[in-house]
């Protein structure tokens, strides 16, 4: 029996006499984007993803968020109701106060990844991709992102939002998270700390730079773009915008705002309201 199995395995892997088939099989085994596309299509439909340009997807832990559940890979881990968690009790270990249900699910997933890494000689993924329905509350998506990041051993992973691109296919929009406990900037660091607070129909723009004295309010993505273009002229070296959505803002709202300003401030950082301080 072992000999039969061995023959089948080698026929799958490397038959020298049929190199074309072998190469094709190898390429298909490397098809992370195909696996992601298959799963996202079934779980929530690619049309329901937020639209953005993004970058090509690369392998990592993929998370899908629909109105009624969260999946890590293809496993149901948490139930949602209209995209929200019923019990938002925070995990003690989570400094951003992320819900225990999310933290526990990711911690279990990291443990499984760690065990896989010892048995199968693979690396613990350093990338998390979140495919969220565009109507998902942005704060749900961010609570998941913080839970994934804070529960990962050693260091937070790189985070990506799975988006649908007009060029076709799934893409990944990278984003960062303000540290869970907030950020104290060094005096004289010359950081701008540009922040856009998104509430229903209103964008409030602030910054930590003492010279940025005013708080600006605008109502449309087009007005936001004009305002940030003016700020960019004053701070041409800055690349980063922090977006802080309120509880009524959806993932789609956030990405619609970001797409308009992406060419000005391409580095996206999310916050759930942590303080940015300059001593």
């Amino acid at each position: 029996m072992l000999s039969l199995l061995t023959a089948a395995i080698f026929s799958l892997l490397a038959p020298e006499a049929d190199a074309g088939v072998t190469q094709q099989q190898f390429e298909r085994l490397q098809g992370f984007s195909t696996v992601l596309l298959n799963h996202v299509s079934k779980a929530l439909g690619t049309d329901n993803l937020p639209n953005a340009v993004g970058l090509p997807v690369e392998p990592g832990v993929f998370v899908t968020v629909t109105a009624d559940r969260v999946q890590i890979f293809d496993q149901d881990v948490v139930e949602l109701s209209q995209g929200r968690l019923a019990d938002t009790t925070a995990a003690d270990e989570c400094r951003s106060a992320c819900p225990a249900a999310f933290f526990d699910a990711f911690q279990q997933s990291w443990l499984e990844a760690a065990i896989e890494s010892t048995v199968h000689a693979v690396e613990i993924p350093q990338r998390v991709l979140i495919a969220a329905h565009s109507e998902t509350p942005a704060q749900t998506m961010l609570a998941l992102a913080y839970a994934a990041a804070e529960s990962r051993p050693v260091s937070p992973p790189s985070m990506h939002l799975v988006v649908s691109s007009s060029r076709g296919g799934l893409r990944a929009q990278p984003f960062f998270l303000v540290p869970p406990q907030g950020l104290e900037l060094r005096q004289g660091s010359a950081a701008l700390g540009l922040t856009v607070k998104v509430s229903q129909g209103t964008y409030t723009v602030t910054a930590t730079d003492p010279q940025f004295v005013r708080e600006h309010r605008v109502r449309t993505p087009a007005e936001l773009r004009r305002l940030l273009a003016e700020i960019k002229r004053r701070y041409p070296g800055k690349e980063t915008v922090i977006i802080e959505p309120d509880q009524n803002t959806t993932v789609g709202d956030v990405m619609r705002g970001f797409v308009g300003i992406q060419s000005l401030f391409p580095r996206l950082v999310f916050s759930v309201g942590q303080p940015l301080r300059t001593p």
Partner: protein
Amino acid sequence: MLPVVLRSVAALALVGAASGCQHGTVTANLQNDLAPAQRAANSFVHCIEMNTSHCVQSQDNVGGWDAFYIMGWLGGGSPTSILAALPNELALHGDPTFVQRRFVAEVERYAAPIRGAECDATDLQPIDPLIDQVAVVANERMVRLGLWQGDMTHVMEGLVDEAHESLGGGFLVRLDCAHNPHHVWVATREEDGHHSVVGLTTLLPHFLGGDRASRDDISDRLQSRSLGLASAQATLVSGDVDPWLPFPIEEF
């Protein structure tokens, strides 16, 4: 849970019995309520606790367990790691020496934590239905995710047959432990009336009866030396805003 002293006596007796010594009377009295497979599982764990080098017999045929474990991984493991490692895993599975070494390495990885974990066999399931169940789940999942390709039909059939051939009539025994690794599952098989352990895992997929550990237990495991993560440190780059914001502060 047996008192520590009694467990130590039992362990000594069981190791003696496993190595051919006939001083197993105390052990038999303590364990006579257990099924032979559970007794074999407890003996195996006690053997590990005693740090003997005979826990994994060199003639053990562990290919069936490896086949079962691979199917469990395909049914519940990370698609990312399956994509990265499946071809190599299948190639290695064809090498009996490697398969044997992998089992030994797994036992050695958990030897230290098991030594103080106070593990006892608490449940067992016949493994034949589990082999069929894991094959169905793995097949369905591979198709659904788009991982089913090439000659996978023959590969899966081969894994199922090998698992039945090697593990048939055996059991999957669950051991619950007071400390890390908290749960251990071992596979046993019977040959000439003798039950021996041919596989070990500390993580069983949910669809095979593995349950979610508590947050404390998971934290405990993630920080254990057996996974090698406790001493690992993140790399900090000078000039970056923060480990969470790894880009130059001038651009922030």
